[in-house]
């Protein structure tokens, strides 16, 4: 696999002094689906805008398909498709014309068969002669996707593609994304829906306040999600964890009235819960209650963002 998108120390400072990207670095392999996850105002859209030519980076550089996005913008942009977050369409133009226009802008000859295929795939074929203002919000978003796909991009940026869309469109969109992946297209999607990242991404990057906090394989993240914590409430507080229980890496609550045990539901040797409970009984401890909790991607995400905010505070 060779890198398709290489971002190195990319910075963006807007005219009002706001630093939207603080030296972001990221490498995306050809054919992978990367989910860029972050809260509102994290810098997701700015990063995509800088890569697609909508905004000029203030520093650092970025390559797409080996081409610098500023110096070799023609070569870089010719392989990039962008589905913007905001719906922006010329209201009086017919669907098929606006899609053809996009292909022309990318310097490609009209291709009726491809146009039909893409419009059919997005359930737009029957609406091809409708004016875009006559379409529903979901249909308009489909048109934006068709416009981004019509010039056969090798890299597709989807900025919040499923924000405010119905279930059917979301499912269709994921289908389209999977189909593109099968063709080897590299896909970067921003979202603040964690389920979306879980459903289709190969890797997840977490961004907040213009900085990438983590880039990790989704499966590795899921594995972290497989970790659970068992909280054992004790009937009577203790001063220290009994020596016989040292192997279990238990954490004693500050009040001494509870123990926490971390385990992995997908662990090779089982969870160890049965043995622990026996050992607790043998150590003479009386239990008053048990709770288990699981760290979700959401918690990992919120935890990362909170850590960063505490650091900068």
């Amino acid at each position, binding site marked *: 696999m060779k890198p398709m998108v290489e971002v190195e120390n990319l910075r963006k400072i807007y005219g009002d002094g706001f630093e939207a990207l603080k030296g972001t670095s990221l490498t995306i392999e050809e054919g992978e689906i990367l989910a860029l996850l972050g809260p509102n105002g994290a810098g997701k859209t700015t990063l995509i805008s800088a890569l697609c*030519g909508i905004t000029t980076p203030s520093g650092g550089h970025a390559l797409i398909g080996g081409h610098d996005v500023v110096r070799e913008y023609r070569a870089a942009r010719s392989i990039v498709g962008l589905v*913007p977050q905001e719906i922006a369409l010329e209201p009086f133009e017919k669907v098929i*014309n606006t899609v053809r226009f996009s292909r022309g802008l990318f310097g490609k000859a009209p291709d009726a068969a491809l146009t039909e295929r893409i419009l059919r795939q997005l359930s737009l074929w029957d609406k091809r002669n409708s004016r875009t203002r006559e379409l529903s919000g979901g249909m308009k978003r489909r048109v934006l996707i068709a416009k981004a796909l019509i010039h056969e991009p090798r890299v597709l940026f989807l900025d919040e593609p499923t924000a405010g869309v119905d279930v059917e469109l979301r499912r269709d969109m994921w289908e389209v994304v999977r189909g593109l992946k099968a063709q080897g297209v590299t896909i970067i999607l921003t979202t603040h829906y964690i389920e979306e990242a879980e459903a289709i991404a190969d890797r997840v990057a977490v961004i907040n306040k213009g900085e990438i906090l983590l880039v990790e394989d989704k499966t590795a993240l899921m594995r972290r999600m497989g970790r659970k914590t068992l909280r054992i409430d004790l009937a009577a507080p203790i001063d220290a964890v009994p020596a016989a229980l040292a192997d279990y890496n238990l954490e004693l609550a500050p009040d001494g009235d509870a123990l926490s045990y971390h385990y992995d539901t997908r662990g090779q040797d089982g969870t160890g819960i049965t043995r622990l409970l026996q050992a607790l009984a043998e150590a003479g401890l009386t239990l008053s209650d048990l709770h288990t909790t699981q760290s979700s991607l959401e918690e990992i995400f919120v935890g990362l963002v909170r850590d960063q905010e505490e650091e900068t505070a």
Partner: protein
Amino acid sequence: MNLRAIQAIYVYEMKRFLRTLMESLLSPVISTSLYFVVFGSAIGSRIDQIEGVSYGSFIVPGLIMLTIITQGISNASFGIYFPKFIGTIYELHSAPINFLEIVIGYVGAAATKSLMIGVVILVTAGFFVDLEIMHPGPMLAFLVLTCLSFSLFGFIIGIWAENFQQLQIIPLLVITPLVFLGGSFYSISMLPPIWQTVSYFNPVVYLISGFRWSFFGLADVPLGLSLLAIAAFTGLCLTIIWLIFKTGYRIKS
């Protein structure tokens, strides 16, 4: 050069024009006809010939100039302002095209539209007055150059404008007065001397004078100066366009 992109923009803009063909052509034709009724027939019948040309014929070049200047500006400024306003400008930014190609596409389409309107007015005028074009070649050159330069100017306004008021303000406060006071409906020589001197500071005087010369061989200012004026104005617009391109002024954040 991404020729297909230029073509795509040009065709897209022309289609927008053709969608509103009736409005686009009808309003200039009606207003021109009204000018002929008011100035040509009602008032013109009381005005003597101007250097051997009937008043009705005399105002034809000025009327055409008035229309193509205002149409060129409004078509081009709206053409580029509208995508900025509705957000579809993202597509121009993210496509493998440069600013020059965008300018050629939009300005080319706007200039074509105003040229078409200019020709329609010329034909309409032919129904009201006898028209003889003494120098057809230079007439066409003046027509095309004026359409192009004022479409360039309109494009600049469209880039600069941040709202609809700004889009209107320069055409309304600067261009319309300059055109009306630029000898569209009279010869500069009909003015008192002091206003003649003031008029020579109005660049539109040179355009209308040159254009009128191509019809009747009559000019308020020497032909060379008219050519220089249109060349200088085109050059100025091109320079501003180039500066916008170099600095990215109001195109990208």
